[in-house]
């Protein structure tokens, strides 16, 4: 499952961040921001229009990611 499809307020762990192209700088940046395997992550909100962007809580930080950015993050639900 990708982060884009993760239901609201459901705890999950990052499995990997996929590159959509060879040197995908967005994926690289996501990893730098802490989206690394084993990191707990949660979708805590969605934008009012079209459900985008997603409000993500990872580590001690909140990020707003657009759908195609969140799609790069593969996650696994906990429990």
């Amino acid at each position, binding site marked *: 499952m990708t982060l884009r499809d993760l239901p609201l307020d459901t705890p999950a762990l990052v499995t990997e961040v996929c590159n959509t192209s060879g040197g995908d700088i*967005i994926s690289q940046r996501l990893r730098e921001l802490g989206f690394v395997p084993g990191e707990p992550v949660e979708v*805590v909100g969605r*934008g009012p229009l079209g459900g985008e*962007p997603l409000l993500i809580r990872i580590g001690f*930080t909140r990020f*707003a990611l657009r759908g195609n950015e969140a799609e790069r993050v593969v996650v696994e639900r906990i429990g």
Partner: protein
Amino acid sequence: MDATTITHPLTIALVGNPNCGKTALFNQLTGARQKVANYAGVTVERKEGVFTAPSGRRVSVLDLPGAYSLEAMSPDEIITRDICLGRRPGEAMPDLIVCVADATNLRLHLRFVLEVKKLGRPMILALNMMDAAAARGIRVDRDRLEAELGVPVIETIAVKSGGAAALVGHIDAGLIPPKPSIDDHLDLHAEVRRLLDAAVVMPTRTSKIDDRLDRILLHPVFGLMILALTMFVVFQAVFSGATPAMDAITAGFDWAAGLVRDHMPDGLLKGFLADAVIGGLGSVIVFLPQILILFFFILVLEESGYLPRAAFLLDHLMSKAGLTGRSFIPLLSSHACAIPGIMATRSIHDVRDRITTILIAPLMTCSARIPVYVLLISAFIPERSVFGVLSFRGLVLFGMYLIGISGGLMVSTVMKWTRRDRSEHPLLMELPSYRLPSLRNLAIGLWERAQIFMKRITGIIFAANTLLWVLTTFPGKPAGATGPDIDYSVAGMIGHLLHPIFAPLGFNWQICVALIPGLAAREVAVSALGTVYAVQGSEDTVSQALGHLISTQWSLATALSLMAWYVFAPQCMSTLAVIRRETNSWKMVAVTAGYLFGLAYVAALIVYQIVSRL
């Protein structure tokens, strides 16, 4: 540990993640002794300041742009990386790097600290926001962190007076820590976890207050309502709050110009001083109150952490039109005046999004268009009530706002589709913790904006106004001539020459002549028309008498065509000047002016040709 002692004036560079409180620390260290400029050749802001340490040592501080990583993704991050490495031509390599990290967000910030450490440059770590960390029950074992990290660690509270004393003391001792050693193959995330486990106790993941506030402020319904309400308050304050100050400034400059007219001998110097120097300066400074009030609110929204939330709420809508949520505030500000709007685009990190926003900002209906619209609407649009309560004229004026907004969105959409670079524009936006804005940071921020406006803009405006004055004054009226003065000037001649070009838009020669001085600022067109039609008196009487005159002499098609012209035409040199300043490129000024004139011509042509045939 061993340290080198340095005796010459020190240069230090502050680096850190965005939202680490770096700029607050910079303000705390240097106060108002700051110089804000751009790095040569790019539009990245360069902030440098100096302070004198207790020992008398002079320390020069460079506030480098915030960066998430040294694997640079944006022009700001490239600057930060290159200066840390001493690779940027014309910038000295700093003696010491002060890496700033938010103690409440160490999971993210320590990774960057490790990246900086990898550079192998002398550095210290400033653990900032120690007060907020303590309030949330986060305990950092400073000694342990210092030992594990191998870099001096100093606690700071950037928003509290004296909160940087320990840092100043450390720098003042002149101790440059040795270059840290680091293993090149270290997994930075694993190392961060190790450091956190060893030295930090964190009871909660994110602050409870932040979570609760976000539930309300980012709520699909309440969030949007609160945003709308906030914007309403800001606009009320900008328009009603600025009026007394603007009136006072206008009156002051009128008084000064009157003094010159009454007490100087007749001649060119008198006209030049009264019209070009005093009048020209006044036409720019009159915008200062609006700009300061607007920026006060923008700074409060930014400092409090609300700005990225507003961007969050609107990102989806704006991205459909080739913009980003971050474009919203600059575009909204442009409804007061495009100058602060364009200056506010600095909060847009993606260069392409920023340029698009700058290009369409002049299309938003700024307050200087209102006198022109009011003149034309009251002369040509019959007053009647709609649905019993609404004024038809009011609706037309509202319609002009909508035309401006939709015109801008259309332009940005077209730019989105025609851009050669189709790569994704990432949002990837951090929503920082909410904070109470500090008065000190607000004051310094406002002072900076006012300085930029006065220094950079007035020069260009002054030159342009002088040129306009020359054009509208020379060669002067021959003896015995009866027409208005402007008709015998170069501007008048140009107006007549331009007439054939504008005739298809229904513009008569009087409008063409008035368009030339109207290049200085839109509202000048009203007084310029007054001059051409030889109507005299105060601003209000000119507008009224002019309204009578043109309602009998112009056709409805001409009036509507002129309104269409004013939606698009770049009749404001201050805007072009600020675009030059913010993009550092004359080409961008030419592109903006060119496309706006093109659109204005086509729109006015269509309006005139259709309406005149009805």
